[in-house]
């Protein structure tokens, strides 16, 4: 799904056009799901626990 969205986005960038049927923000949301975006998925539990605890300050 994400790969398909990415290729659509890439196609849109190449042609300067937005993929048909996809809003600007739907594309951005798909991007954040994609492997190209910065993600914490797959990092060690120890590191993730540390950063999530630290972030509790933001998540009151």
């Amino acid at each position: 799904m994400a790969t398909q969205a990415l290729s659509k986005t890439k196609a849109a960038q190449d042609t300067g056009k937005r993929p048909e049927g996809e809003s600007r923000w739907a594309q951005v949301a798909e991007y954040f799901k994609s492997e190209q975006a910065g993600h914490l998925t797959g990092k060690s539990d120890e590191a993730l626990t540390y950063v999530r605890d630290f972030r509790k300050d933001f998540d009151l």
Partner: protein
Amino acid sequence: MTTYLLDVNIITVLEDQDKPGFDLVSRRLSALADEDEVAVSVLSAYEYKHGIAKAPAELKEALRKTWEDVEANFSILPLSLEAAEVYGKLKTLYELETQTGERRLKEHSVDFILASTALEHNAVLVSNDNVFLRIREYAPRLRVENWTER
């Protein structure tokens, strides 16, 4: 056209697909109209960069990339003198009406700045911090949404 001002706690959901709320935030973002704008405060940049500096080495690159993605896709709103006026009045009103102690009030300084920025830009403040619901009682024009809730 509506402007949405994302609190840093929404950015931290977008960085972490395993975090509860990721799909909900993603869905809300997808549903925006093309003419809508999404922004973050420069203060959120300060908070996020602090998070990167403090993070374990193995996470730093991913977090830096997330912030690059934020800058690439969303506007960054600066601090302004107009919002400072709003901040001064709003925080004082809240302090007097709620009798909140100085220490507790200081903990929420950034929240009052975000609320003032949202009011200045007539933006919807998107956050999962309930403090904004309390601040809104003293700023009825403040619109608040929590995209991590259904």
